[in-house]
């Protein structure tokens, strides 16, 4: 036993040092070098740039409050879409605070008669930074956005339909609409339609 212990010290110390350099420094730095050279856009956060200024990331949701924009899902990240504090609400299925929050979010919706509320529209995502809405949740907001922008509903609806993305293989995940991309398209439409 004693011999086992003493004989283990040198390999344990030296191997820790060697592996730390290989796996903790060389590997991540080499990956960073290759990533920055080959995929600089993705490696730096997939930023969306308008007129030379970064207005967001393709992958990270951001808050929208104006009636002129499609609204994202409720967010539990910090005070909402805080990308330095990702996370969900962690409310359980029988949580009264969850019920209260959903009621509050429903009260702020512009109801569409005869259509039940899509679940993602009034639930907080896991990351608090979900960039997407379900197609149903986006379509649910068409009437409000069209009215605020004085655009025909059909035009806004067509915009949503055109923005629906599906996974490479459809069964891998759900169809979705990127809210930032949709709202930027809306702004481009708005540049020609009446402000």
């Amino acid at each position: 036993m004693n011999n086992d212990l003493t004989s283990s010290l040198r390999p344990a110390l030296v191997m820790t040092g060697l592996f730390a350099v290989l796996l903790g420094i060389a590997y991540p730095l080499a990956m960073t070098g290759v990533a920055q050279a080959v995929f600089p856009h993705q490696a730096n956060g997939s930023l969306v740039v308008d007129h030379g200024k970064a207005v967001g990331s393709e992958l990270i949701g951001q808050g929208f409050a104006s009636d002129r924009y499609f609204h994202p899902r409720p967010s539990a990240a910090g005070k909402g879409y805080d990308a330095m504090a990702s996370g969900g609400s962690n409310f359980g299925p029988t949580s009264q605070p969850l019920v209260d929050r959903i009621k509050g979010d429903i009260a702020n919706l512009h109801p569409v008669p005869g259509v039940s509320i899509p679940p993602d529209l009034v639930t907080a995502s896991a990351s608090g930074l979900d960039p997407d809405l379900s197609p149903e949740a986006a379509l649910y907001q068409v009437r409000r956005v069209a009215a605020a922008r004085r655009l025909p509903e059909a035009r806004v609806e067509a915009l949503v339909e055109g923005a629906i993305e599906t996974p490479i293989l459809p069964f891998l995940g759900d169809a979705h609409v990127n809210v930032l991309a949709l709202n930027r398209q809306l702004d481009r439409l708005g540049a020609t339609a009446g402000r």
Partner: protein
Amino acid sequence: MTIQGWLLILVFVGVLLALTKPMGLWLHALYEGRRTPLHAVLGPVERGFYRLSGIDPTEEMGWKRYAVHMLVFNAVLMLLTYAVLRLQGVLPLNPNKLAALPEHLAADTAISFTTNTNWQSYAGESTMSNLSQMFGLTIHNFLSAATGIALAFAFFRGFARREAETIGNFWADCTRITLYLLLPISIVYALYLVASGVPQTLAGSVDITTLEGAKQTLALGPVASQEAIKMLGTNGGGFFNANSAHPFENPSAATNFVQMLSIFLIGFGLTWTFGKAVGNTRQGWAILSAMVMIFLVGVGVCYWQEAGGNPIVHHLGVAGPNMEGKEVRFGAAASALFAAVTTAASCGAVNAMHDSFTALGGMIPLINIQLGEVVVGGVGAGVYGFLLFAILAVFVAGLMVGRTPEYVGKKIEGREVKLAVLAIAVLPLIILGFTAVSAVVGAGLAGPLNKGPHGFTEILYTFTSAVGNNGSAFAGLTASTPFYDSMIGIAMWVGRFFIIVPMLAIAGSLAAKKYTPETAGSFPTTGGLWVGLLVGIVLILGGLTFLPSLALGPIADHLAMIAGKTF
């Protein structure tokens, strides 16, 4: 539930079954220490490592020596990480100027990553510098995984060797697994993730101005290099607080699918390697069949509940699946599948918040861990854990037919059975004991976010995850307190090493035995009867122990949910 959802689950299992043999073959080459094509590139690195640290890779070790070298190596690694986390404030690569971690959090985190648990009482983006993530944590993602696989190899040798006193060389196993398996796959995998949108930079964050004119700071860092080995090594410790739900860790449904595959890949392969090592690959397929059966039942229940949704929310006029704590790009099916995979394997990465699952949907991850994470399980740990159950299963079968039990050519006697029971009994003892303490003392009761039975489930899940070395959480519980950090730290340490030592003792004891050829009277350990017996033993031993605690937590929660009662 949709046809697409079921298609996802079936394709997922199908792809893994197709990859089982190729992965098993590769692992078997490493198990035997054979030359691989990668030796041409990495062979000099391997030899250099041995020379500098004075290791003779051909030296054979008895189980005690193997155990001591493994433990000392893990202890040194843990101290290194503790030091890095405590000195974070003065070390380089800290673009966001983050301070050192307090003692209890640094110790808890060092234990957490050493034991392959990757429980996180902190939020990565606001706690860990890039150096801490890379140097302090990523090395554990490799080496705790390599340790687990090395231990599985040692255990296999116990069955495979005849009248031998040794079970291999820890350093050779650990080094070969790291260099010829984990590192090369991680390199390719990390680049795939970057191409798909996962950041890989030394910058800490970037400021942007949103369309509505608000300021948003995006946390960045060397994410992809950590993400790859986090999944492959069933570690699960996320770069960000939201883990694989964060769009920067898991940007699309396609990356999500690959992440799920990579959690199970090595675990599936190891079952084949076991069969090959003991000279009959059907032995490997038999234990894999039992694992997959238990897994599919769990996935089915979880998906059914999540797709069905929460009746309390439906009552408010909202139709459809339970989307609280889920990402739209994944949806109910891919979230339920991920939850079952990450808890069946002891990964603990999450792409949805388990705390916000429906009561029974959230019970499945809990049960998966309570079964001992032997349904595929963590890399290495899953298969040796499952073999402990196999030892008990042949013992039970032997009692029924009145013969000395045998398994893959080795007689199973009193010593092995006692050690297997010892290893398996650690789990309920700590989980239930620590949960009971936390449910009565003030510092424990201060933890849960939710009230009612769900609050109890949060505590139960915490210790289940810690002892099981899973690392996923019902994250509502505030764990970064001295009370929980200490309790969780102890639970993780005991849950890892108090199973490993009896397991290695069994390996040593088995290796010393003669080979007992199979006869007409031997209980067959390859057919359907055996698979059924295995499933039964895992469910009875692993599951029944916890049933009362499940009744107090998720089952009570489910009844409340159906009755529309909130807390």
